[in-house]
């Protein structure tokens, strides 16, 4: 084939990858919804967690602090930001102390006597009204009189104001120029995003929008905006991880190119090696888009890691080319072994498909599709673009000596068994915890940021993100009643310092029973009229001035009580919506807590309500989900290992030969575990996936070393190919092992160790008679 034809095919191939990639990118939705990633919930709390994760009232809050300017300017910035966010659809709510709750409450004005607890302890009789009117007289001389006056005729008992106070945060920072300020003189705001707290994509967009609003405010340049909260931490962690991965990516790409040049003395491998892997990846994505329509970000990351095995296919081809022989001929000779490797691994990954977890099924589809396509591309497309070799890799200086050295290493038969027994002992008996259940430990938040979050949270009285109070009842009304019943018990817990503060759904909406009871206490118009007349005696109020009040009370006597559905249409609806959720057949109320000092104290509360109310530890529930997920992965991996053994044995048609391939793989995997356990590193999901990738690479090493060629130069080419593959894997993952981000370090260290062990063991455990051809 002519060179220009090869170049044309190369361009066409690249264009095809780009076209499919572009088409997929516009169709595949990468979700960050944890439900795609973890197994179906078993317990009611897990279910609640999955339904509500990140949607909970606490986790969507961003805490904002503005500093670095005079207070008047900070207050102005706070108002400007408050106004901008109030009009931003990404935010459900924003508060800076300046919000006029009385205005909000006015929407619910007709219901005020049903919502306010006043009637629980008082009646609208002459004595109560007289005391109230006396106070209003005094209010009228107050500097803030103008605020009350508009309400006076309709609402002489100031029920609207009482509601506004009741709905305001129970703990408020001090007000300066009408907005919240911290003890350190920062202007404070709270913004509630519409997006879930653990949706890094949507949180990132909301935070970017927030920062843009701030930067656009006059005088913002000299001030500093600090953001905190779960959403911010998630965005920071993924940004940091991505930045570090990109930095290491650049280093390893340069190193990889240099290594290819050194190994092959040709530029062709550089422009070609990535094509099969890329083809596999875009087809994998296309399959995800076609079958699922969406994929979880973690699935994609894991899938791409596992697909890394395909990087070896073209490298093998380059090392095995011979002078004067078409590339297609070399590929045809290699194909049976490559196909064995690909098919075995794909059969193994079928286990993931059977796991029943959407995330693992996506992983299986992506990886199997990607590997098959990468293999097919290597077999049929690669030969069309790779010119015949100008040099034989078997002639690489020093290669023969290396082979001789490796072939003559001592190979005591008992050694693998001893290593295996010792390894199992270390893995089983090493101290320290085996599993890492806390995913956040892999992307840790800097301590200074955590301390700042705690400080801002305490100053703003913002709810705890770890704990929620869950109330369950068959109906929404039942939940609200339950919430009313436990309010005094909660106040007791506050008095006992078990918790600093709480907010229950009934604080916003009382149960219909309570509303009806209050309604029954409202006097009829004639009674109210005469009580009012009596109450006004001796006071300077003009006669008839409270006629609107009498009319309102009469109207509310006939009003149907306020339902959750109706309440949710009010400006305060979003608050209740996040606190009162339908779950399957029943309803759950979510109370927020701030400053949980003694989680154990809630056990009594749970007991007193017959288990209808309990403290939900979000961290504990998430960890239980992670454990369940890992359990599924381990089972899937176990079945995958069995399938792999069967596939390899079948392909090689000899249990003895299969043992030579599977033995080194098993032992190398064990040795990686030994190192991790001995170093006291708890294992996470990322370690498991990395172990699987390393095993996939190890399968190649073992298969090729086990191959009986009887041809000295072909064996040297095998060694060349394997050395290039090992060196490139060590380069990529060894550098990653130096990362400061624990998740990258976990992947890098595990794969690099795995590659080293797999290579060493596949050489040492290969049948000696295959290696020593000179004998």
């Amino acid at each position, binding site marked *: 084939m002519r060179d220009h034809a090869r170049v044309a095919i190369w361009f066409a191939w690249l264009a095809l990858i780009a076209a499919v990639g572009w088409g997929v990118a516009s169709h595949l939705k990468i979700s960050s919804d944890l439900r795609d990633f973890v197994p179906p919930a078993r317990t009611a709390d897990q279910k609640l967690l999955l339904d509500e994760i990140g949607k909970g009232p606490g986790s969507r809050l961003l805490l904002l602090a503005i500093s670095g300017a005079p207070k008047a300017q900070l207050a102005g910035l706070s108002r400007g930001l408050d106004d901008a966010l109030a009009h931003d659809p990404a935010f459900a709510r924003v508060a800076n102390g300046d919000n006029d709750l009385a205005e909000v409450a006015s929407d619910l004005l007709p219901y005020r006597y049903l919502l306010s607890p006043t009637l629980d302890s008082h009646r609208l009789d002459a004595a109560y009204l007289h005391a109230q009117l006396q106070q209003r007289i005094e209010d009228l001389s107050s*500097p803030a009189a*103008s605020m009350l006056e508009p309400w006076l005729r309709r609402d002489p008992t100031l029920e609207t104001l009482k509601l506004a106070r009741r709905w305001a945060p129970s703990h408020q920072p001090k007000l300066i120029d009408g907005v919240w300020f911290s003890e350190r003189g920062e202007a404070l705001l709270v913004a509630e995003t519409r997006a879930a707290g653990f949706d890094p994509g949507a949180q990132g967009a909301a935070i970017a929008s927030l920062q843009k609003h701030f930067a656009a405010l006059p005088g913002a340049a000299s001030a500093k905006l600090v953001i905190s909260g779960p959403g911010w931490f998630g965005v920071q962690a993924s940004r940091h991880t991505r930045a570090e991965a990109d930095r290491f990516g650049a280093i390893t790409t340069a190193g990889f190119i240099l290594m290819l040049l050194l190994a092959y003395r040709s530029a062709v491998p550089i422009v070609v090696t990535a094509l099969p892997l890329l083809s596999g990846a875009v087809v994998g994505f296309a399959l995800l888009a076609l079958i699922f329509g969406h994929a979880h970000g973690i699935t994609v990351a894991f899938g791409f890691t596992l697909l890394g095995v395909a990087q070896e296919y073209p490298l093998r081809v380059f090392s095995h080319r011979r002078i004067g022989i078409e590339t297609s001929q070399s590929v045809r000779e290699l194909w049976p072994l490559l196909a064995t490797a690909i098919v075995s691994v794909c059969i193994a990954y079928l286990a993931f498909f059977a796991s029943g977890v959407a995330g693992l099924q996506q992983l299986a589809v992506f990886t199997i599709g990607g590997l098959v396509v990468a293999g097919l591309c290597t077999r049929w497309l690669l030969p069309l673009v790779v010119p015949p070799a100008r040099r034989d890799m078997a002639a690489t200086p020093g290669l023969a000596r290396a082979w001789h050295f490796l072939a003559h290493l001592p190979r005591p038969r008992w050694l693998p068994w001893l290593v295996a027994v010792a390894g199992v002992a270390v893995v089983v008996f090493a101290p320290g915890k085996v599993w890492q259940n806390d995913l956040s430990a892999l992307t840790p938040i800097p301590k200074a940021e955590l301390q700042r979050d705690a400080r801002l949270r305490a100053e703003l009285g913002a709810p705890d993100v770890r704990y929620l109070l869950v109330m369950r009842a068959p109906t929404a009304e039942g939940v609200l009643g339950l919430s009313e019943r436990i309010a005094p018990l909660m106040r007791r817990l506050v008095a006992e310092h078990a918790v600093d503060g709480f907010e229950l759904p009934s604080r916003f909406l009382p149960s219909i029973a309570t509303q009806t009871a209050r309604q029954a206490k409202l006097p009829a118009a004639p009674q109210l009229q005469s009580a009012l007349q009596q109450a006004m005696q001796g006071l300077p109020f003009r006669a008839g001035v409270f006629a609107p009040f009498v009319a309102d009370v009469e109207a509310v006597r006939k009003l149907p009580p306020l339902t959750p559905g109706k309440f949710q249409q009010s400006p305060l609806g979003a608050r209740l919506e996040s606190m009162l959720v339908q779950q399957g057949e029943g309803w759950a109320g979510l109370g927020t807590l701030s400053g949980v000092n003694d989680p154990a104290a809630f056990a009594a509360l749970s007991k007193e309500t017959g288990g209808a109310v309990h403290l939900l530890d979000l961290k504990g529930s998430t960890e239980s989900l992670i454990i369940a997920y890992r359990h599924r992965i381990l089972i899937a991996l176990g079945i995958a290992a069995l399938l792999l053994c069967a596939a390899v044995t079948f392909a090689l048609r000899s249990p003895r030969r299969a043992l030579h391939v599977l033995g080194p793989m098993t032992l190398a995997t064990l040795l990686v575990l030994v190192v991790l356990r001995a170093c006291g590193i708890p294992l996470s999901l990322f370690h498991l996936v990395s172990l699987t990738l390393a095993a996939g690479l190890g399968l190649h090493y073992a298969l090729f070393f086990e191959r009986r060629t009887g041809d000295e130069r072909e064996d040297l080419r095998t060694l060349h190919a394997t050395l290039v593959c090992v060196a490139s894997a060590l380069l990529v993952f060894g550098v990653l092992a130096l990362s400061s981000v624990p998740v990258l370090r976990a992947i890098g260290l595990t794969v690099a160790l795995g590659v080293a062990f797999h290579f060493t063991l596949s050489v040492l455990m290969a049948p000696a008679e295959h290696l020593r051809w000179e004998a």
Partner: protein
Amino acid sequence: MRAFRDALIAVALAATATGAMAASGLAESLLAGMAKTPPVSTPFVLVSYRGVLDRPLVVSGNLRWLGGDRMERDIAKPFKETAKIADGTITVQRGSGEVQRTPLARAPQAGAMLAGFRALLGGDVSALQKDFALSAQGSGARWVITLAPRTDALKRQLTSLVIDGRDHEPRCLTMTDANGDSSITLVGAMAEQGLRSAAPLESALAARCRNSGQ
């Protein structure tokens, strides 16, 4: 002809501007003459005329300006109340009851009163001119300074604050709300003299503020 007309208009405009400048200049010189070093304290009598009431409401006590935007007002009769304005927040405590906090921005009348006192007692006109247009009438011996709100937000609540005074002493602050309610605060010598009736008519009290007689 047209050039002549334009010149005439220009002259007229210049004359108006000069007049306005002269008027505000008077206000400034009056205010400068009254400047005192905080803290400044004066007795006061506040008479409120409210639409919901059929007779005026009278409270009395002591007003203190502590400098800058800090002020305190103690009501001694007919009930006890302490109100403080600081950091843009009004804090009110009646008797031994709960402390109520209100952002100053929500009570423009209190803000206007504070701005008026700052100007009267501290001679700080610049702070005042941001929110109010100043005008003055009379002479050093007997004068009236009028504060008219500039912003729409203020205008919705407040029509004017008029300060009557004599020589270097203010006598009355008359606040007219946008809804027609009003209040007259007697300070200094006027407050010491007290009221002549338990429920003075607004017109009578206003006349007394303006009257040179006493």
